[in-house]
């Protein structure tokens, strides 16, 4: 890779505890700007746990504890610092979930919600932003005639793209995808992967996936995790053709377990 890489976010010796259980064991990793970084690993390896540290989702539930730092650039802010409000973090970092979870409201209201939460009240600005976000999520053409119909009328793939539009409406710096296509059929999956390819020009993406071929298809960098440790991190093409660690090789060739 000869191009210059800038770091968007960095985990430094990040550990995470569910009560007494140490789910992440001192992970240090960089997430490069405007690239897609994939997290792969068997169930229980901590990849979703790691992902959710970035937008402080663990704060919603009692008994969790962070150690270490997550730095967000360019301002070098530590997202896990004591004085940092999780709400602020979530205003800069967006998330798309495994099962599409549109609100039981209209399509328009779904995308506009993030803006309303920030206090945006100008109807014109909201409408512009909603249209822009739906365009960016490759959904505008399909929903422009039914913006004020319930979001639940959309198909699974459309709902997930709606969730992506909803996250994009707030101009996040980093977009977290938690197994975004595992509940979708192959065609919807392909459309989301296409979308990610376009989105990465604008926003940095960190994606958790249990589908290795998807990681190989969509990501520029891949990290393999096992039981809370980061085993290997590298350029995707290299990792999938010639991994450095035997554990990685065993996992991606299906010799695992």
């Amino acid at each position, binding site marked *: 890779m000869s191009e210059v890489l800038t770091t968007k976010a960095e985990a430094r010796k990040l550990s995470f505890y569910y009560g007494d259980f140490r789910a992440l064991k001192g992970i240090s990793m960089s997430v490069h700007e405007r690239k897609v970084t994939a997290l792969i690993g068997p169930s229980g390896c901590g990849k979703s746990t790691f992902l959710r540290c970035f*937008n402080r*989702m663990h704060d*919603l539930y*009692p008994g969790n504890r962070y150690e270490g730092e997550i730095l967000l650039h360019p301002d070098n802010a530590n997202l896990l610092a004591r004085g940092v409000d999780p*709400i*602020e973090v*979530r*205003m800069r970092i*967006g*998330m798309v*979930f495994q*099962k599409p*979870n*549109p*609100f*039981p409201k209209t399509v328009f209201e779904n995308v506009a*919600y*993030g803006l*309303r*939460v*920030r206090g945006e009240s100008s109807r014109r600005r909201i409408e512009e932003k909603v249209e822009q976000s739906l365009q960016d999520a490759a959904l505008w053409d399909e929903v422009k005639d039914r913006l004020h119909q*319930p979001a*639940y009328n959309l198909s699974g793939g459309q709902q997930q793209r709606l*969730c992506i539009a*909803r*996250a994009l409406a*707030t101009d996040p710096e980093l977009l977290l995808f938690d197994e975004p296509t595992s509940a979708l059929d192959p065609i919807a999956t392909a459309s989301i992967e296409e979308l990610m390819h376009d989105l990465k020009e604008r926003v940095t993406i960190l994606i958790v996936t249990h589908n290795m071929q998807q990681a190989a298809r969509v990501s520029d960098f891949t990290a393999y995790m096992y039981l809370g440790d980061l085993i290997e991190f590298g350029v995707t093409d290299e990792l999938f053709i010639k991994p450095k660690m035997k554990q990685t090789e065993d996992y991606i060739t299906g010799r695992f377990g």
Partner: protein
Amino acid sequence: MKPIKDVIRRRKRWDAIFAVCGLLALMVGVLTFVALFLDMALDGVGRLSWDFFTSFPSRRPGQAGILSAWVGSTLVMLTTAFFAVPLGVAAGVYLEEYAAKNWVTDVIEINITNLAGVPSIVYGLLALGLFVYQFGFGQSILSAGLTLALLILPVVIVATREAIRSIPQAVREGSYALGATQWQTVRYHILPYSSAGILTGVIIGMARAIGETAPVITIGALTFIAFLPPAPVQAEPPFVSFEWLLSPFSVMPIQMFNWTSRPEAAFHANAAAAGFVLVLMTLAMNGLAIWLRYRLRRNIKW
């Protein structure tokens, strides 16, 4: 090895037997209610007329009516709702969304469940001491409203909590992930989506409250009222008045009780008619609850 057909046939027979038993059990309840209702209807329908609804009680059975009773019931229900709904919903939201999961919360929850089991006459005594005498509200609609609000509070709280619990966590996470605060999530998501369940619980609670007799008697609802509480809306300023809250009153169950305890048979007919009206009012409220739940749940699919 018995042939499969025989085995299946025997098992299906037990299926049928259980279905029949279930149906019979159901019929016992339904038929009992229908029998009572019809009996009351037959006795009382003859008395129903415009005069019956617009006359005050009187010593002469032919001229007695339920005007003060149903007006009183309506006003008391309004007051009850006014207090029970905000308190119950707020408590339910707090317990589900804000309270930390520790032993203090557990104690609170246990107490609320216990409230539902307190005999209603005990509420009446509490109200007598607290509202009527201590606070000085007197034997008024306000006291009755407050008492019945306390009575149905557990129902509203439980309904609120159940409705909130049925909201999947994914919706909350979706809201928080966009940078919403807890209040924003409650206001834009939790409350709107649980409104169907909450409303249903409120109406069911009210349908129960409308028939509660013991606590209302205890705080001194009068059985013979020949006047109506002052009207809330007047022609002269101030245009809205709250005097009605502090006025003496009667309610439907008390009027019925009063008539049944008179020896004249004609009064019994009156009581039956009043009972008929009361049951209709209750059924109407339950029907409203069902319809509202259907309307509000239409957009929610999970």
